[in-house]
C-alpha cells in the first residue's frame, strides 16, 4: 500500500511525530545541438564565450527564434512522464538583473507550460511503490556563468551556457523522506536518459534540483516551506532534506515559527543556510514575451513523437521479470541505467538470463567500480563476456576459472577463448581421467573414506583433493558425481534436509 511508505518516515520529536513533506523542482539541461532560441552550440567545455550568438549576448535588436528540437525533447519528456501535453503554450519573460543574464530577463513559461500533470512511480524496495505527481514541465533558458576567481576585484562572465534549453520539472509535494527524494531524482534521471532528452550529468550541472521542504504533524495542513536552491548531487539532496527537516522540527518544538525563505546547502558543513527571505524575494514581473508567438503543436506531432518513444524503465523491468524470469530486485538494478539494460539484453540473448544478470551485477559491476568506469566504457563488452559465458555453458571452463579468465580479459582485452587456450585452462570433463584421480584419492585416504560415510558433508574435502590434483581443471560437477557414486553417498539435498 503506497500509504505505508508515506507514514513510515515520521520524525519523533518531544511533542510527538512530525511528517516531512518534500517537493522538487528539477532543472534538466535539454540534449540539443543548439540553444533554445539561437543557433549557438550547446557543447560543454568550450573556451569562455566561444559559443555565444548575438541573441545570447542580448545585442540591441536581437530576437529569439524557438528551436523545434528543444520543443520536441520537452514533448518527449512529457510523454515519458505520462503527462498532459499542452498543444498551446506561452513563453513569458522573468525579469531580474544579474550579470550572467544578458537580456535582463529569462525566457521561461509561467502560466501556460508545454507539459501539464504527470506521474512517476518510485520503487521503494520493501516499502513498495510510491506514486509521485508531476505538477508541470516547462522550457526555459539557462543563464551564463559568473566567474569570481579570475581577478582580485573583478568578476568575469562566460555566456556559453546562456540560452541553453532547460526543462524545469516540478513535482507535487508527494515525497515523504530523504530516501524517497533521492529515489525520485534517480528515477527521473533514468527516464530522461532513456528518452535521450537530458544526459543527467549532475557534476557538469546538466541536472540540478531545488528542494522544497516543510514539516507538519500528520494530518495537519502543509507547513511553511523552505526552498533549498541548486543541490547538485543525489547524496546531497538526501543530506539537505534530513538536515532541513531536523532544523525545522527543532524550531517548531521550541515554539518558533518557520520563515519562508530560500536556503543554500553547504555540502562541506552538511547544513543549509539562509540565502534570502520571502520579503527579499524577487518580483519577477512575469509577462508574455512579445517577441514570441504562442507555441503551437499539432496532435500529429505529439503522436509521431509518442510512436518513436523508447521502452521506458518500468516497462522494461516488467518485461525482464515476465519474459526472463528475473527477480524483482535484479530487474530493478538492471533497468536503472539504460546502458546496463542494453548490455544485459545483449548478453542474455540466447543465454541463461539469470546467469547473465548475476555476472553483470557481480563480476562486471565489481570490476567497473574498481576501475571507476561506466558500463559504456567497459573494457569487456557484452559480446566478449557472452563468449566467456558460452565457454562455461559448454563445460569448457568452470565458474571459478571463468572468473580468472574475466580478470585477464579486463586487463588485456583478449577474447576469452584465446586466454583459455593459451593458458591451458580448459576444464576436464573426461570422466575416465577424473575417475582415475578419484580412485587414487580414495585409495590413499582410507580414514577419510570411513569418516565420509557417517558425515557426508566432508565430501567437500575429497572434491578439493581431486581439484588440486587436476590443477583446478576438472569439472567440479563431474567430480562430485563420480565421488558420490564411488563413495556411495546420496544426493546432497537429501542429506541436508
Amino acid at each position, binding site marked *: 500500500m503506497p500509504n505505508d511508505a508515506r507514514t513510515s518516515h515520521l520524525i519523533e520529536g518531544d511533542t510527538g511525530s512530525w511528517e516531512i513533506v518534500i517537493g522538487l523542482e528539477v532543472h534538466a539541461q535539454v540534449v540539443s545541438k543548439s540553444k533554445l532560441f539561437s543557433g549557438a552550440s550547446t557543447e560543454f567545455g568550450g573556451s569562455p564565450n566561444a559559443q555565444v550568438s*548575438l541573441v545570447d*549576448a*542580448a*545585442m*540591441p*535588436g*536581437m*530576437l*529569439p*527564434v*524557438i528551436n523545434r528540437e528543444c520543443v520536441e525533447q520537452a514533448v518527449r519528456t512529457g510523454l515519458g512522464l505520462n503527462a498532459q501535453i499542452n498543444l498551446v503554450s506561452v513563453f513569458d*519573460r522573468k*525579469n531580474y*538583473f544579474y*550579470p550572467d543574464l*544578458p*537580456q*535582463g*530577463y529569462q525566457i521561461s513559461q509561467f502560466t501556460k507550460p508545454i507539459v501539464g500533470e504527470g506521474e512517476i512511480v518510485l520503487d521503494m524496495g520493501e516499502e513498495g511503490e510510491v506514486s509521485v505527481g508531476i505538477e508541470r514541465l516547462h522550457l526555459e533558458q539557462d543563464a551564463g556563468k559568473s566567474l569570481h576567481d579570475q581577478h582580485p576585484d573583478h*568578476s568575469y*562572465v562566460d555566456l556559453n551556457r546562456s540560452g541553453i534549453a532547460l526543462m524545469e520539472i516540478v513535482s507535487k509535494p508527494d515525497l515523504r523522506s530523504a530516501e524517497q527524494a533521492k529515489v525520485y531524482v534517480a528515477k527521473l534521471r533514468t527516464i530522461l536518459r532513456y528518452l535521450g532528452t537530458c544526459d543527467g550529468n549532475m557534476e557538469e550541472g546538466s541536472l540540478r534540483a531545488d528542494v522544497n521542504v516543510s514539516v507538519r504533524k500528520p494530518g495537519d495542513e502543509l507547513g511553511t516551506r523552505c526552498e533549498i536552491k541548486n543541490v547538485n548531487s543525489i547524496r546531497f539532496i538526501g543530506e539537505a532534506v534530513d538536515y532541513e527537516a531536523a532544523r525545522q522540527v527543532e524550531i517548531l518544538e521550541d515554539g518558533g515559527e518557520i520563515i519562508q525563505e530560500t536556503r543554500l546547502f553547504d555540502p562541506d558543513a552538511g547544513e543549509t543556510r539562509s540565502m534570502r527571505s520571502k520579503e527579499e524575494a524577487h*518580483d519577477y*514581473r*512575469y*509577462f508574455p514575451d*512579445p*517577441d*514570441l*508567438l504562442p507555441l503551437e503543436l499539432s496532435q500529429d506531432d505529439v503522436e509521431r513523437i509518442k510512436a518513436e518513444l523508447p521502452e521506458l524503465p518500468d516497462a522494461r523491468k516488467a518485461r525482464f521479470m515476465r519474459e526472463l524470469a528475473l527477480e524483482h530486485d535484479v530487474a530493478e538494478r538492471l533497468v536503472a541505467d539504460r546502458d546496463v539494460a542494453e548490455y544485459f539484453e545483449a548478453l542474455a540473448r540466447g543465454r541463461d538470463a539469470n546467469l547473465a544478470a548475476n555476472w553483470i551485477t557481480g563480476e562486471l559491476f565489481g570490476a567497473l567500480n574498481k576501475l571507476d568506469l561506466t558500463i559504456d566504457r567497459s573494457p569487456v563488452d557484452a559480446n566478449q563476456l557472452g563468449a566467456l559465458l558460452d565457454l562455461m555453458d559448454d563445460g569448457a571452463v568452470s565458474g571459478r576459472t571463468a572468473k580468472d579468465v574475466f580478470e585477464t580479459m579486463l586487463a588485456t582485452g583478449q577474447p576469452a577463448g584465446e586466454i583459455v587456450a593459451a593458458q591451458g585452462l580448459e576444464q576436464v570433463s573426461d570422466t575416465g581421467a577424473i575417475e582415475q584421480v578419484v580412485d587414487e584419492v580414495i585409495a590413499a585416504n582410507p580414514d577419510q573414506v570411513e569418516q565420509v560415510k557417517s558425515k557426508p558433508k566432508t565430501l567437500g574435502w575429497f572434491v578439493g583433493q581431486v581439484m588440486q590434483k587436476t590443477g583446478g581443471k576438472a569439472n567440479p560437477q563431474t567430480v562430485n558425481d563420480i565421488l558420490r557414486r564411488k563413495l556411495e553417498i546420496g544426493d546432497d539435498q537429501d542429506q541436508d534436509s
Partner: protein
Amino acid sequence: MSDLTDLTIAEASKALSSKEISSLELTQAHLEAIGSANTALNAFVLTADEQAIEMAKASDARLTKGEGGVLEGIPIGVKDLFCTRGVRTTACSNILDGFTPTYESRVTANLWDAGAVMLGKLSCDEFAMGSSTETSCFGPCINPWRRSGTADKLVPGGSSGGSSTAVAARLCLAATATDTGGSIRQPAALTGTVGLKPTYGRCSRWGIVAFASSLDQAGPITRSVTDAAIMLSAMAGYDRRDTTSVDLPVPDYCAGLDEGIKGLKVGIPAEYRVEGMGAEVDALWQQGIEWAKQAGAEIREVSLPHTKYALPAYYIVAPAEASSNLARYDGVRYGLRVPGSDVIEMYQNTRAAGFGSEVKRRVLIGTYVLSAGYYDAYYLKAQKVRALIKRDFDRAFEDVDVLLTPTTPSPAFALGEKSGDPVEMYLNDILTVTVNMAGLPAVSIPAGLSGEGTPLGLQLIANAFDETTLLRAARALEEAAGPQPAPENWWSTTP
C-alpha cells in the same frame, strides 16, 4: 544642385536610368545639403560620407550595366534605431554611447540590396520614446517649417523627427522610421511629408533597437505616396529571424496606385473627433471627406467605441514592454558603463547616467504595471482593451475599405512647449495609437497648412496587410489635395 535634392524617388530613378544624373552627383548633392543644414536642423546624428560615396559609385557601376534594384542609387537616411554594420547606432541614448553593431538590420539590409545609398543616421527621441525628438541625447531636432512670420523653433514631431526633418528639408529622398504609437505618422504630419506605418509583421524587426516589441513597426517617410510604395516594396518581407514577421508575399505596391478610389467605401469614425482638436484640423478632415467623395468614394459613418481607452492602455502596454526590453542596457557587455563599488551600484550608476528622464519615466511606469499585485489591474486589463480595440476595427472593416481621420489634433508645436508636461505630450498620439494597438497599416499624407502656415496631415487606416488599398486611397487624396508647398529654406549656411 537644389534641383537634385528636390526630386522624388520616382523622378530620381528615371533620371538615373536614363543617365541624366549619376548616383554620385545625387549623393554628393545631399551630403552637401546635410552639411549646410545640420547646424540649424540637427537631423543627422552621424553622416557616413565615405560609405555613401562608395555605395553611390557601386550603384553607378550597376546602373551603367543596366542592372540594379528598385532603389538603385537613391540616397536615404536611416533612423538611429536601425542597427547598421560598422556604423555607430545609439537609439539616441547615452547608454549606447559608442556602440557600433557588427550586424545590419534586416530592413536596412533589404534597402541596400535594392540599391539604396546610406547618407547617415537620423535623430529620434531616445529609444523612440517621445513625440517631438526633444529627448534625443544629441539635442532636439528642429522642424524646417516655421509659423508664418516667426523664427520660433518648432518640433518636427517624434519619435522619427530626424527622419521627417531630413525628408522635408530635402536632406535625403526618403528615410527609414519606426512607429510604436504614431512615431512615423505624427512627425510626417508635422513636417508635410508622407509617413507610412505598415501592418505589424510586414517588416522584420530584426536589428531594430526594441522599444515595445508588440507595437514597433518599421516604415518609410517620403515626399510622395508613390515613393512610400517604392520604399515599402524594398523594406517589407518575411524574416525567419523575427517570428512575429508574417510569411506573406510582398505585392508590388506601385501597381494600381493610380487606379483611384471610385467605389471604395471610406469610413469616418465619429470617436476621432476628440476633445482639444483644433477647428482647422476638423475643417481639414471635412475637406478630406469632400475630396474622397468627389473622387467617387462612398462615405460611411462608422463607430470605434473603444477609441478613448486606446491611449491609456497604450501607456501601460508600451512602457511594460519597454521596461523589460531596456533591461539589457546594464553596463555589462556594451555601451556605457559607470563603475560602482559593486555590481548593483554599477547598474544604478550606469542606468542613471545613461537614460534620459522620459526613458526613466517609462521604465518606472512599466516596472510598476508589471509588479505583483498590479499586473491584473493594469497590464492584463490593457491587453483586454487592446483586444476590444482590434474588434472595433474588425467590425468597421466589414463595412468599409479604409478609414479617414486627421493624423494629429494640432499642428507642430514649439520647442519646449510640451516637454514639461508628459500627459500633454502623450495626447499627440491620441489619433495614431489605436492603429498600433490593432496592428493595422496606416499612412499620413500632407493635406494643407494650418492658419499658422504649418503642415497638417490626414490619416488613412486599412485592414491588416491591405497596404495596397491603403496606398491607392492615399494616392487619390494626395492627387485631390494638389501639390503641397515645401518649407522655405532658412536653414542653409551656404546659398
